[in-house]
Every structure is written in structure tokens, then in C-alpha cells.
């Protein structure tokens, strides 16, 4: 019996330690749900083992006895023994608890899961208020990366390179193909003050030259035809202080515009993230994205 009890304790400890060890990174002790779950898990295994051991002890050391009922079914008899009192008491106890819970503890006309949710959100916001109010550049970049990995990486890839052309490669502004397509078709989606980008601003060899120039990062001499673009995007391509998109590099404005409006282009469609991120998080992704370009 002693051996069994020790074995039981070892099993309980091993299981709990294993769980704690593996879930460790995710275990946050200020989340009471986590704590309650761990307690629940412990209760499951501990109560089962000790109750069963109690009865195993009786199997080993007790003897069966009692008065038999009159009936006998295919050789099976039944004692009229009283119910185990512990079992009976706990049964009644849980019934009382149930009524208490339902009518006194959490009366259902007063408890609401949505109310609970609202509280959770308030608490959470309060907790991170200081981080969100005056984030340093470092904080923004780190926050941006974590948001990116959860929200954006499924399309852009964890390295932001666009998963073999399945979405925008965010370490590089635009490809020649993309620029050509915009030149040919125009574009109107991002909601810049300048409004729409008209189609056919350049053609043939001019368009080729412009596209090569922009895709190459606008280095060296601008092709003559670029003048047509400069009227809106500025000679440096930086979008004239936010009047039109910066086509030279990623900037915060572009990222927030894309997040707000989504974007449809030659590669595919990027959904709008309007309302899914809070303003600090949007700033943070922008800051992260502009930083990875810089590190190229």
C-alpha cells in the first residue's frame, strides 16, 4: 500500500511538473484563469488517485459482509449495506452548492459573460496604458514585430519577404511588374488627399524606364518621363508630404493607409485591417516595417 501511495504521488508530481514545464512560457500568473486551470488539473489527478487508493486499501484489507436481498440474478446477490457516508454527505454538499451558485453566488440575472468581457478589456487596457501612451522607438519596433508575426506573417511570411511572391515583399518597396501595372491601370484605393492615380501616365519604353528606376530604389539619374510622376509623387518620390504615396520607400503614412483601406494589386488583395489594431499598434507595425527596410 505504501508503495502505491508513493507511486501515486510520483505520478501526480510528474504530470503537474511536465505540464508546468511545457506550458511555462505561456503561463502567466497574473491571469487567474491559468492559475485556476492548474489547480483544477491538480485536483483531477490528486482526487482520483487518493480516492481510488482508499478503496484499493479496502480491497486489500477489508472483507465483504452484509445482509443479502432476497433476489438473486444468475447467481449474483446484493447486500443491503448502507451507502458510504462520505459519498452521501458530499453528494448533498454539491447539491447545496449548486443551489447556492445558481441563486446566490452568481444569480443568472446578474451575471453576464459580456459584462465579464468588458471588465477584462478595461483591466487589460489599464495594464498596458503606460506602454501604449508614450512608447519609445524601441518599444514600438518590438511591439510592431510581435503584431506583425501574429497578424501579418500568415501572408507576408515571418521574414516579411512575401512567401515567394504570394504577398508583398516588405523588405523591398516595389517590383517592376507592380509599378508597370499601376502605370497601366492607375490605382484608387488608398485614400490619399491627391485622390486617384490616373492610368496611362506613361507608355512603352518610357514606362519601362520609369518602372526600372522605381523598382531599383530610385537610385541614379531619373528617366525623363519620370517628370510626369514627380508632379504628384515629388522628384524624390516621397509623396510630397503625404499628398500621394511614397514610392521610394515604406513610410508610416503608407502602412497606415494600407491597413485602413486594404489594397488590391497585381499580386493579390490585402484585406483592410480597419478597427482590428489600436492606433499604437498601427504605428508600431509601421515603425517595424520601415526598420526592416533600413536594415537591408
Amino acid at each position: 500500500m505504501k508503495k502505491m501511495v508513493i507511486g501515486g504521488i510520483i505520478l501526480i508530481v510528474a504530470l503537474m511538473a511536465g505540464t508546468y514545464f511545457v506550458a511555462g512560457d505561456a503561463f502567466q500568473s497574473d491571469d487567474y484563469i491559468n492559475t485556476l486551470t492548474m489547480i483544477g488539473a491538480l485536483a483531477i489527478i490528486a482526487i482520483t488517485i487518493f480516492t481510488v487508493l482508499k478503496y484499493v486499501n479496502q480491497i486489500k484489507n477489508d472483507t465483504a459482509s452484509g445482509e443479502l436481498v432476497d433476489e438473486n440474478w444468475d447467481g449474483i446477490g446484493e447486500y443491503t449495506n448502507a451507502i458510504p457516508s462520505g459519498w452521501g454527505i458530499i453528494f448533498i454538499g454539491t447539491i447545496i452548492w449548486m443551489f447556492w451558485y445558481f441563486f446566490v453566488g452568481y444569480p443568472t440575472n446578474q451575471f453576464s459573460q459580456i459584462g465579464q468581457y468588458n471588465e477584462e478589456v478595461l483591466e487589460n487596457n489599464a495594464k498596458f496604458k503606460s506602454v501604449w501612451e508614450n512608447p519609445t522607438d524601441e518599444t514600438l519596433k518590438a511591439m510592431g514585430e510581435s503584431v506583425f508575426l501574429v497578424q501579418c506573417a500568415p501572408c507576408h511570411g515571418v521574414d516579411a519577404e512575401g512567401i515567394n511572391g504570394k504577398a508583398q515583399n516588405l523588405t523591398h518597396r516595389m517590383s517592376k511588374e507592380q509599378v508597370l501595372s499601376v502605370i497601366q491601370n492607375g490605382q484608387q484605393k488608398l485614400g490619399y488627399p491627391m485622390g486617384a492615380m490616373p492610368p496611362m501616365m506613361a507608355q512603352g519604353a518610357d514606362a519601362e524606364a520609369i518602372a526600372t528606376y522605381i523598382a531599383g530604389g530610385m537610385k541614379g539619374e531619373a528617366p525623363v518621363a519620370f517628370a510626369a510622376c514627380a508632379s504628384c509623387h515629388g522628384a524624390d518620390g516621397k509623396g510630397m508630404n503625404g499628398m500621394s504615396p511614397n514610392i521610394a520607400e515604406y513610410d508610416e503614412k503608407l502602412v497606415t493607409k494600407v491597413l485602413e483601406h486594404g489594397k488590391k494589386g497585381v499580386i493579390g488583395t490585402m484585406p483592410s485591417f480597419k478597427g482590428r489594431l489600436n492606433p499604437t499598434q498601427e504605428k508600431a507595425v509601421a515603425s517595424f516595417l520601415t526598420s526592416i527596410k533600413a536594415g537591408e
Partner: protein
Amino acid sequence: MQSNAQLEYDYSIVKAFTFATILFGIIGMLVGVILSFQLAFPELNNLAGEYGTFGRLRPLHTNGVAFGFTLSGIFATWYYVGQRTLKMSLNESKFLMTVAKLHFGLYFITILLAVVTFLMGFTTSKEYAELEWPLDLLVVVWWVLWGVAMFGMIGMRRERTIYVAIWYYMSSFLAIAMLYLFNNMEVPTFLWSGDAPSSLMHSVSMYAGSNDASVQWWYGHNAVAFVFTAPIIGMIYYFLPKESGQNIFSYKLSLLSFWGLMFVYLWAGGHHLLYSTVPDWMQTMGSTMSVVLILPSWGSAINMLLTMKGEWQQLQTSPLIKFMILASTFYMLSTIEGPIQAIKSVNAIAHFTDWIPGHVHDGVLGWVGFMTMASLFHMAPRMFKREIYSKSLMETQFWLQTVGIVFYFTSMWIAGITQGMMWRAYDEYGSLLYSFIDTVEVLHPYYTIRAVGGLFYLVGFFIFAYNIYKTATAGRVLDKEPANASPMAS
């Protein structure tokens, strides 16, 4: 009561259902093992085109083991326990014999059709009620046939008082009849197809959205109650005292556990809908009633353990007793695990994770599987009139499967809790710490351990099937029916 020393029980139906139990057990568990390997090694999804993907196979597993394996076991033991504790033989009534044969035949065809239709993608998507409407109709027919057989047999009984085991089989029949009908209310769409050439198989649920969910989990939870719990308790109430030669510890405990279980179970279905869009009060009801449910559940298990008072040596020497005692233990484990997972705050983590399949398999492998196999082991020498072929194979099977369950349950326990906590984790900036795929990748080792555990259990089941086959064909012939302990060659 007249003496019935001469009563010859008729085991032909029992044998047929025994065969079905083994056949569907193999199919169902083989698919379960494939599923668990697919989650560990996803390339395995595409070995058989669209027919081998996880989604197509999953209903095949759940239905195969619940309605193939478990129900066959229930029917096999019903026709055995029923005849013996009611003291009547099926061959006393041509009518009942015909009904029972039809019951088996239609049942068997239905399960085979289920396999085919699931592979083809005919499913209504509601868990444990996936069968499309034509098969539902078949189910209703043989369920009614079972009821006719059951009440017919009870009507012919020579034992005035019906035994506890029978109460549980009756509850299964009555409750499932009601649950199945209400949850499968669906309209074949070809009836209102306009002139569109609609599929004949397709149907649409009579309930929508949250209502559909409420009905479904009222059903789903109680399908567990009246397929995986009540009839299995019925089995242990017969086979444990019979095999061990002990008297049931307490009639009063049987009585309170039975009526307690019957009353409380039906209120607890709300624990599948915690934090969903059904009303708060319904959820609270499900949650609290689940906790109350521990006691009537444990009552039966305790009654069984106490029945074995003073019989430690039987537990050491008989693998059959071992199966049954460990089954009670796993039953206790899953009936306290369930209620604790039903506490709202715990369910916030447990729901949607692998901890739930973990909980499920504590019950189904440890309790349903062990009890079903133990019952067949006990019946085999009586119906084939031969000694069990090999005790050492039984021992091997016992340890292999026990280790398999421990692998299953520890890995899914850890996997589920880890995953649940990762979904909720925030970093120091107030954004989610893990992307979804992080929480998938972390599970890989646990999925692998589970798959290996499942494989152990399956191999054990093959050993079981072989042992029963050998018993039926090559076991030493017995000249007299054993009273209690089943004879087995070592």
C-alpha cells in the same frame, strides 16, 4: 419461481454482435490511429486523394467506435445479460428471435453504409449525429427493433425483479430514442428543390444557429451518457460480480447512483456551450450540474470497487478482473475530469484544445474499451463452451493497452493545457504573444506520443481479436459452464 436448471440460453445473436464488435473495433480504432498520425505527420492526409483527409476520416472514427464498436458491444452484452438475469431464452419465442435477427442485420448494414457514405462526404456535420437522413431512418428502425426485443424479453421474464444492469440498458434505449429523434430533425432538400436536380441525400437542419447548437449538445452530451456510460455501467454490474463471484456491495448505493445519474445527466449538456452565444443561465446550469454529476457517477464506481472488498488476490491473478477494476478507475478519472473542465474558468482554457480529446479517451479507451473487451472475454467461454485461449496474451494486451492510454492521456493533457494558455498569452507590450501556427508547432511531439500510444492500444486490440478467435476455434472444450472465474489456458 420455477427452477430453470434446464434453460438453454441462445447465444446466436450474441455471437453475431460479438463479431461486429471486433470488426468495427478494428476499423474504428485503425482510423483513430491514422487520424492521430495525420496530426503528427500531415503528409499522411493525401495518401488516398480526397478520401483520406483528416476531415473525411474523423466522423468515420467517431461513428465507427461509438456506433460500430461500442453499440455492438452493448447489444452483444444485452442479449447475453438480458437472457440470463431475466431468466428467459430467446429461443423460447420465434417472434423475438426474428426481431433480434432483424435487429442485427439492419444494424450491420447501416454501419457498413455509414462507412461508405462518410468516405463519400455525406455528413450533416453535427458531432455524433453525422449520418444523413436515409441512414437516420434505418437507425430508427433497428432501434425500435431493439426496444421490441428488450421489452419482449422483459415481458417473458421469470425473475420478478429486474436487475440493476437491466435498468441501465433500459435507460439507454429510452434516452437515445428521444435524443436521436430530436437532434436529427432534418428536411431532405430534394423535396423543395424547385426544378433543380438536387442530391437525394442532402438535408437541412430544422433548427438554426444557437438553437441548433443547444439541441445538438443536449444530444451530444447525453449520447455520451447513454452510449459510453449507462450501458457500460450495466455491463460492469453484471460481469464484475459474476466473474468474481462476489455480491454487489450495496443495493442502496446502486439505487441512489442510478436515479441520481438519470436525473442529473440531462441538465449538464450546457457545459459544451460555455462562453458561446446561448443564454448565461443555460451555461451556468450546465456548469453546476456537471459538478453535482461527479457523485452519482462515482457512486457506481465505488460500488464496484467495494464489491471486490477482500479480493485482492483475484485482482492479482485474473487479468479479467484487472481490466474491470482499471476500467472503474478510468471511469472515475474521466467523471471528475469532465466536471472540472466544466467549470467556466477552466473551460475557458480547456475548450477547443486537445485536453478535450484527452478527456474523451480516458473514458472511451480506459472505461468503454476495457469494459467491452472484458465482457466479451467473460462471455466467450460460455458461448463457445471453450476455455479462453491464452491468459498470457491477455496479460500482454492489458499492459500494452494500459501504457497506450497513459501515453494518450498524459500527452493530450499537456498539449491541451499548453495550447490553451498560449492562445491567451500576451507579451509585455499588450499584444498577443503567439501566432496561431506557434501553437500548432509546439504540439508536434505530443501528437507523436499520442499516436504511438494509440498504436499500442490498437495492437492490443488485435491481440484481443486473435485471442477471441482462437478461443472460439481452438480453445480447450469445456464440459460444464464455469460458475464464476472464466477458465483460461496460461
